[in-house]
């Protein structure tokens, strides 16, 4: 048996921190070990992700109960693998970070409860992590980039523009009032019978398509506040497609290309608004302006190209973490845990998983976002 963790050296700033991260907020079961050295540089020691796509494919989207069942069936093995790959034992850890929200609460409970139990058994501090904050801080791990910067988060569950002013200080500039962008890709893929997950499927179908054949709306274009909306775009695709059924392969390719083009154009319009807001508030930046992109939709090459063009024209730096760290992973959770630990922030074992956990708790619900507002 390994020695009890309470024989480990004292923890705190000024020394290297090694943190186990756990991520179970949606349909990826993930564990990772990350080290943060005394200079604030990060190193990924291991990064294990098990996707549940196969389990959800027949349903055309993530089924929360299926996701939770899959998480509990394998999380301990994923953690064991991450610890082994990193070559660390419990006694080497300085803490455990687990995603506590926002997300599917059944899965969050599995990951957070597992983390709590290990923390209790090994006398380690727990850090409950906001999934959005983990995405927001990933560039600190991958690029050594520190705030301030503008974050575009585009995933299956979230579409937000966040002014990241410092670790723990976030101002939400815009969010979606209905579907997340990744959700719109999934629903369009389902409509066109392209499979799941929809992002890669639509992108692949669009390669041979003509985006000019169908005229689709650019939702929210020109609006002053940089919010998003994709429900109307999704409906427009359905309307255009329904008029020409049965769909040929060429029809599907053209519709996919038109949707992808419209979605990217809508994002670019919204990002421009947010860039103007940030540039106005930080008129004389010390280090220039930077746009950071995170979330699974950041893997879309058309969107990446459009963002590269926009930031190039405006003289902004564009930071795109590697694809594997744009999608859900536990390395970003472990890293955020290390950033919290070095600041002396830990969480009690009573911490509750949160389906909704806005990164900017002061942000008013976006107009049209419903009674409860956006999920995050």
């Amino acid at each position, binding site marked *: *048996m390994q020695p*009890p963790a309470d024989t480990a050296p004292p923890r705190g700033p000024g020394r290297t921190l090694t943190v186990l991260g756990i991520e179970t907020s949606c349909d990826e079961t993930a564990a990772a070990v990350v080290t943060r050295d005394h200079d604030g540089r990060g190193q990924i020691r291991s990064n294990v992700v098990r996707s549940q796509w196969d389990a959800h494919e*027949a*349903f*055309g*989207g993530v*089924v929360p*109960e*299926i996701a*939770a*069942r899959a998480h*509990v*069936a394998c*999380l*301990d093995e994923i*953690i*064991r693998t991450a610890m082994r790959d990193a070559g660390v034992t*419990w006694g080497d850890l300085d803490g455990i970070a687990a995603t506590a929200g926002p997300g599917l*609460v*059944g899965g969050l*409970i*599995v990951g*957070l*409860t*597992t*983390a*709590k*139990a*290990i923390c*209790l*058994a*090994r006398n380690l501090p727990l850090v409950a992590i906001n999934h959005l904050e983990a995405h927001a801080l990933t560039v600190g791990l991958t690029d050594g980039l520190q705030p301030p910067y503008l974050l575009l988060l585009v995933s299956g569950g979230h579409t937000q523009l966040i002014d990241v002013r410092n670790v723990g200080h976030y101002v939400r500039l815009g969010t979606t009032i209905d579907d997340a962008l990744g959700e719109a890709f999934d629903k369009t893929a*389902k*409509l*066109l*019978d392209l499979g799941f997950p929809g992002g890669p499927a639509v992108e692949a179908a669009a390669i041979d398509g003509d985006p000019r054949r169908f005229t689709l709306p650019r939702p929210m274009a020109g609006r002053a506040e940089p919010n998003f909306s994709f429900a109307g775009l999704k409906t427009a695709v359905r309307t255009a*497609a*329904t008029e020409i*059924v*049965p*769909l*040929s*392969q060429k*029809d*599907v390719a053209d519709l996919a290309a038109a949707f992808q083009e419209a979605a990217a154009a809508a994002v670019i319009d919204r990002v421009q608004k947010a860039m103007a807001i940030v540039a106005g508030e930080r008129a004389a930046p010390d280090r220039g302006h930077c746009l950071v992109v995170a979330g699974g939709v950041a893997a879309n090459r058309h969107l990446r190209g459009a963002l590269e063009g926009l930031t190039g024209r405006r003289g902004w730096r564009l930071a795109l973490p590697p694809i594997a760290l744009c999608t859900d992973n536990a390395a970003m959770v472990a890293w955020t845990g290390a950033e919290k630990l070095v600041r002396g922030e830990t969480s009690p*074992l*009573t*911490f*509750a*998983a949160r389906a909704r956990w806005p990164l900017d708790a002061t942000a008013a619900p976006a107009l049209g976002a419903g009674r409860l507002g956006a999920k995050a």
Partner: protein
Amino acid sequence: MNVLAMDTSLGALSVSVRCGPPSALRRADACEVLSSGHAERLVPMVADVMAEAGLEFPHLQRVAVTLGPGTFTGVRTAIATARAFRLATACDVVGMTTLALMASGAFASGVPPAGRLLMIALDARRGGLYVQTFAGDAEAPLGPPVELTADEAVASLAGRPAAVVGSGVPHVIDAARRLGADVVPCSAPDTPSAAHLADLAPGLAPLRDIVPLYVRPPDAKPQIGKSLARSA
């Protein structure tokens, strides 16, 4: 044997510890009636009960857990915790279904009356019951745990007299009256007991796979017919 037992499967949360030599066995038990929030309370309750018993994790030898059926999230909460303790310590894990554990508790307290089968019936909501019926003792179930309507549960007795225990008692008794079956309610506890599980744990075989018993499948249907037609 130093044992930690946990149950979060139904409308209560209970944790028990048995430790020390048989001649000086230390016991600590905690139980809260809780309709939700098991995941927030469980690990702190384990910490409290372990401290009360004077048991430290390096000396924990066995974790016992209820495997379900019950609320999906509740069942997963204790199982995720048990799997984490096994991962982080040298303990093994044993388990019992909620139905078998409740049956064992009922038999131990003299239920049912002689000559009657024992039916454990848990209200699974949406008109369903999680049901298992036993003859003689908890190790002699007539079949595996199943989900049935109250009428189906009564019919499964095939005319044999029975006593029924659990949150589904009102539904079963109502159906028995309508169907003319000889079924009586019993006063045994209607939730599983971690204390009873802790007492049984030394005699259970360690589990290799700690798998939840959900009985009911996820409420999701494959998306068929949502795509537009393709030309040949």
